């Protein structure tokens, strides 16, 4: 492997270019429309000048607080104080980096950053102040980071924390430019998979609105098949009035053939027509009666970031500058350059802190709208989606329909059959036209839908197969991709299997686990939650109490287990009262922020079981506000106890791991409390009434 890189002159000062072997660090690209970046070009992240260091963060900062973790790595390897390193977010003038997805940042960037910092440290110590320095990779054992030196394992005040608590401008919508205008691109109230375009509007009425600036017919690329009409105002509040006054008439195609999404993905209907095309586990279960036969349906869900996506675009001197809150500014640059026939060197996209990404801010939408309006008016334009736009035009977690069967003998699963029908994740319909998706369907399946179907248990003759169908609503990556819904389904079925066997669900799982790291998190969660010493079902007055357990592995590298305790009132309302979670992600750079990611995953787990849903009307998103698609609230938040297993395994990701164990634990706790196995999510309280 190639482990050489170069410290390169950067005008003044000393700049490290990180080198590393692509074969070692690269992973399967998550956004297939984006070519795998050249890792060796992922360069220039650490620089020295006049006694200070600048870390240009090669990742998007979206609340995983990766800026803090990477600053810890840099300070440790540079062997300098916390205040000696400034952190900056990157722009597209730098060499491209992978999109910030898939919990990869600590896993893939720790060692390259440490190698570059170590080389820079040596160069500075040798009296160098300018020029190029070669990075010759040293063994891991020679890196302070892997010896837990310096700031590794500590929890310093988070980077940008002060800016957040004092309200400083760090998000895309916070950008101000001289002469800036405010824009919006209106689109038809229709499925984005149905062709629609504006055909008539009342420009005179719109012009009469105070603050009106322009109607822009060339409003940039469609979203799906929805062609828009741009409006621009001098004040943001005028946009609503302008939109209303315009009274746009839309030409909208007929309803999508899969407007009834639930019927379209019904797994039993699909199985009746034949085997599902994509195979995840290729065992051959024997025919015969099943001991467990469970249907699980998980609906569409929005990401629900509190920040509706926003961008500021400025066209000046034949160059376009865009400020974006995105998980992938390089993709935005490429899409915008292509859409408006600009050279890539004419487009600069600056990363801003992302106000919640969760996999949903990975493509180019609002940025192209801002670019179109800025190009039309030759002025800076800010566009922030309305909340209804965020629901209607973004992509979402696909719905999925599962049928899981298990057969047991002597307390062990001998046969397992998991069938799933969903919609696309990796090969998202938000980016891929249907003709291209037919190709991926034929040759590649969809690894995002599949994620987690290969359960981490020894289940005898185990089969898992799936299909992905293009729906009228755009679907794509959502925290954990398929792992959340798949684990909810499989951990529910495994819990039923334990009941059939008459065995404790923790012991039953252990008996089917080969991986000692998975066994370790499971045993540890049992210990901290006093699993064996606490009744799994109890009655407290009229309230039914239950405990459930689940565990799993995320992307084959990161481990979690969860115990949930719930209280179900006579009317069926569920309150999650306590969640215990154990997590092992190898060497921990920042324990407090790994715990924060667990807390986030657990709240998302609670949402998956209790609230997440995105209502549709004839194939278009009907939700407009959080009242239509609720997310968990503070009042619903249980007590949370987290234990990290600190090991010397290589550092891996934490941002999505507990999605594999949280939802199943809660569903299993509800089963223990009520005797009712949830089959449709989110929970319908009438099913759980006493």
């Amino acid at each position, binding site marked *: 492997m190639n482990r050489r890189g170069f410290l390169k002159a950067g005008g003044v000062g000393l700049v490290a270019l990180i080198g590393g072997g692509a074969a070692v660090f690269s992973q399967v690209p998550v956004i297939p429309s984006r070519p795998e970046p050249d890792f060796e070009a992922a360069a220039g992240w650490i620089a020295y000048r006049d006694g200070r260091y600048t870390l240009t963060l090669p990742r998007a900062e979206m609340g995983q607080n990766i800026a803090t973790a990477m600053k810890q790595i840099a300070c440790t390897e540079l062997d300098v104080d916390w205040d000696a390193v400034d952190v900056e977010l990157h722009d597209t003038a730098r060499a491209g980096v992978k999109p910030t997805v898939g919990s990869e940042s600590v896993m893939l960037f720790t060692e390259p950053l440490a190698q570059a910092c170590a080389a820079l440290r040596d160069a500075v110590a040798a009296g160098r102040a300018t020029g190029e320095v070669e990075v010759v990779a040293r063994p891991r054992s020679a890196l302070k980071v892997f010896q837990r030196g310096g700031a590794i394992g500590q929890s310093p005040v988070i980077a940008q924390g002060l800016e957040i*608590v004092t*309200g*400083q401008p760090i998000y895309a919508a916070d950008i101000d430019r001289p002469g800036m205008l405010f824009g919006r691109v209106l689109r038809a109230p229709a499925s984005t998979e149905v062709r629609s375009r504006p055909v008539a509007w009342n420009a005179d009425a719109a012009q009469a609105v105070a603050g009106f600036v322009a109607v822009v017919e060339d409003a940039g690329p469609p979203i799906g098949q929805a062609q828009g009409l741009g409006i621009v105002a001098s004040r943001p509040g005028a946009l609503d009035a302008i939109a209303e006054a315009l009274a746009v008439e839309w030409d909208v195609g007929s309803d999508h053939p899969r407007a009834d999404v639930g019927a379209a993905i019904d797994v039993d209907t699909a199985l009746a027509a034949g085997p599902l095309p994509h195979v995840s586990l290729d065992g051959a279960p024997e025919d015969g009666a099943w001991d467990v036969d469970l249907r699980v349906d998980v609906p569409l869900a929005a990401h629900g970031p509190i920040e509706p996506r926003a961008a500021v675009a400025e066209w000046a001197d034949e160059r376009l500058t865009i400020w974006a809150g995105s998980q992938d500014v390089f993709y935005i640059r490429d899409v915008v350059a292509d859409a408006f026939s600009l050279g890539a060197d004419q487009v600069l996209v600056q990363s801003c802190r992302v106000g*919640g990404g969760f996999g949903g801010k990975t493509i180019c939408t609002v940025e192209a709208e801002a670019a179109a309006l800025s190009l039309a008016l030759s002025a800076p334009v800010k566009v922030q989606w309305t909340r209804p736009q965020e629901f209607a035009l973004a992509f979402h977690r696909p719905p999925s329909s599962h049928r899981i069967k298990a057969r047991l003998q002597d307390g062990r699963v001998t046969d397992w059959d998991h069938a799933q029908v969903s919609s696309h994740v990796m090969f998202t319909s938000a980016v891929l036209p249907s003709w291209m998706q037919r190709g991926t369907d034929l040759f590649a399946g969809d690894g995002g839908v599949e994620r987690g179907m290969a359960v981490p248990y020894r289940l005898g003759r185990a089969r898992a197969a799936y299909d992905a169908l293009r729906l009228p609503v755009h679907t794509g990556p959502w925290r954990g991709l398929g792992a959340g819904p798949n684990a909810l389904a499989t951990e529910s079925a495994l819990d039923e299997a334990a009941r059939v066997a008459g065995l404790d669900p923790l012991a039953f799982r252990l008996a089917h686990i080969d991986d000692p790291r998975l066994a370790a998190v499971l045993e540890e969660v049992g210990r901290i939650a006093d699993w064996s010493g606490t009744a799994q079902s109890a009655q407290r007055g009229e309230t039914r109490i239950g405990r459930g357990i689940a565990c799993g592995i995320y992307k084959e590298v990161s481990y979690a287990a969860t115990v949930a305790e719930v209280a179900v009132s006579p009317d069926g309302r569920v309150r999650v009262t306590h969640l215990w979670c154990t997590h092992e992600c190898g060497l921990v750079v920042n324990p407090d922020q790994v715990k924060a990611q667990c807390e986030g995953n657990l*709240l998302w787990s609670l949402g998956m079981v209790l609230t997440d849903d995105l209502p549709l009307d004839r194939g278009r998103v009907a939700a407009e*506000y959080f009242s239509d698609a609720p997310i968990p*609230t503070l009042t619903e938040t249980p007590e949370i106890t987290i234990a990290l297993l600190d090991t010397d395994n290589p550092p891996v990701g934490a941002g999505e791991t507990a999605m594999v164990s949280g939802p199943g634990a809660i569903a299993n706790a509800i089963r223990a409390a009520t005797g009712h196995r949830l089959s449709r999510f989110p929970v319908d309280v009438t099913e759980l009434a006493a």
Partner: protein
Amino acid sequence: MFRLNGQSEDVPGDWSDEPLLHLLREHFGLKGAKFGCGVGLCGACKVIVDGEAVRSCTFPASALEGTEVRTIEGLARGENLHPVQAAWLAEAVPQCGYCQSGQIMSAVALLEQNPAPSDTDVDAAMDGNLCRCGTYTRIRKAIARATEAV
């Protein structure tokens, strides 16, 4: 005329139709309060008007006459953070951070009205502030820490 973080300010005539949120962000350049939904459901836009935490996205600028408005930018005294801000940092509450200005302003208003809130009081005061990252347990801890500090 109204007071904004202790300074006298006027609402320009052409901004009188705007909600307070846009006025703060795009006229006065105070970006701390955030747009989240525009209809008063998420709390990201909360500021304090006459001692009450209000949703600035639905508070009309035309109703500001004679009021006292405080935003997150006005909490610290120079380098000295407000105890709620300091508690937020000490508990490392923020993940993405976008909702936190509204969370902090709700907490400040709560503690000014009720210096020793019960858990129920905290739930009641904070339930209108949504966070998608899942920072709620730390918000509770930070309020408890600030309660001791105040």
